[in-house]
């Protein structure tokens, strides 16, 4: 009797772990995309993804299967990112005026196929956008990324960030204004050309 109970429990645990692996395989690419935007480079993004899945694995028993896995995962990732930034006691505040021009700072920018004007402009703006994101506090950066790049509703962002919709609304608005100010200062021509293309 005891052995049957243990066997059933083990089978249930195995099923749950199989489910976790399957969810992980479906979600790791978009998770990496968010991690990349949060950290600004491939090495830190991969570390963040690995840390996120380790935490997710350990707390998978708390995951409610009726809710989207990515929302739960992104909550873990944003917390892990904020923890990591605080632990290191630094925000990524690389000088925006000198980076890229002095040759000392490099940015991994994703390649993208296609060459219409708008895409070209978009690619040219990718680096200044990433720099602007990294100059923000992790809370502002996370709110903007979840809303604009992941396309989540404010309520979902609030749920992920464990804060109110009002705070999310304010962070997104102020975050976007910071990015625009940065683009108008550091890539004015490209940014204006992009706006004209719309």
């Amino acid at each position: 009797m005891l052995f049957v109970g243990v066997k059933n429990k083990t089978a249930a645990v195995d099923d749950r772990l199989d489910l976790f692996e399957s969810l992980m395989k479906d979600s790791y690419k978009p998770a990496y995309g968010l991690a990349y935007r949060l950290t600004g480079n491939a090495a830190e993004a991969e570390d963040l993804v690995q840390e996120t899945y380790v935490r997710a694995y350990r707390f998978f028993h708390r995951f409610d299967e009726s809710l989207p896995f990515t929302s739960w995962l992104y909550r873990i990732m944003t917390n892990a990112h904020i923890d990591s930034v605080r632990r290191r006691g630094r925000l990524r505040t690389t000088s925006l005026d000198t980076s890229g021009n002095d040759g000392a700072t490099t940015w991994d920018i994703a390649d993208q196929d296609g060459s219409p004007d708008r895409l070209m402009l978009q690619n040219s703006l990718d680096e200044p956008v990433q720099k602007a994101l990294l100059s923000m506090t992790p809370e502002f950066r996370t709110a903007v990324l979840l809303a604009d790049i992941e396309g989540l509703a404010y309520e979902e962002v609030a749920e992920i960030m464990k804060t109110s919709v009002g705070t999310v609304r304010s962070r997104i608005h102020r975050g976007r204004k910071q990015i625009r100010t940065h683009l108008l200062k550091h890539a004015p021509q490209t940014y204006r050309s992009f706006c004209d293309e719309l």
Partner: protein
Amino acid sequence: MNCKSVQNRLSAYLDRELGGDELLQIRAHLSTCKECRAESDGLRALKSLLGGVPCPEPSEDLCERLTANMMRLRYEEPKRTLKVSAVMFASVAACSMLGTLFFMNSGLAKSIWHGRTPSSGKDLAIAQNGNPEAITGSDPAGPIISAANFVPR
């Protein structure tokens, strides 16, 4: 609604996060205010730019490394649980042994061995001394069962 209030709500407006009166008021304001309309267009362009940011691809072996991590955790966690169980088992065993030793030394065991379960303070005293005669006012109605008249059931 003045220009400042409208501009503070423009991101939420563009994200379709407003409803009811707030939405109608902003829409009405934008139709008449050139400055706020320009601000709205600027934020819309930025939103479009951010929404089109390409998603970088992870390295090819990331999935394999993640799976390997999961495998490691999958087989390490039960080991850790087993280790905890072993420590608990050892603690319980040690407590039992200590309890048994204490019991043997207390003299209770002797009383039980002599076939009598001490039920009163007097019996306990006998068990501890091993000599019923030494107990003042021992109960003559309750003879001590000795090894000589002990009959196993």
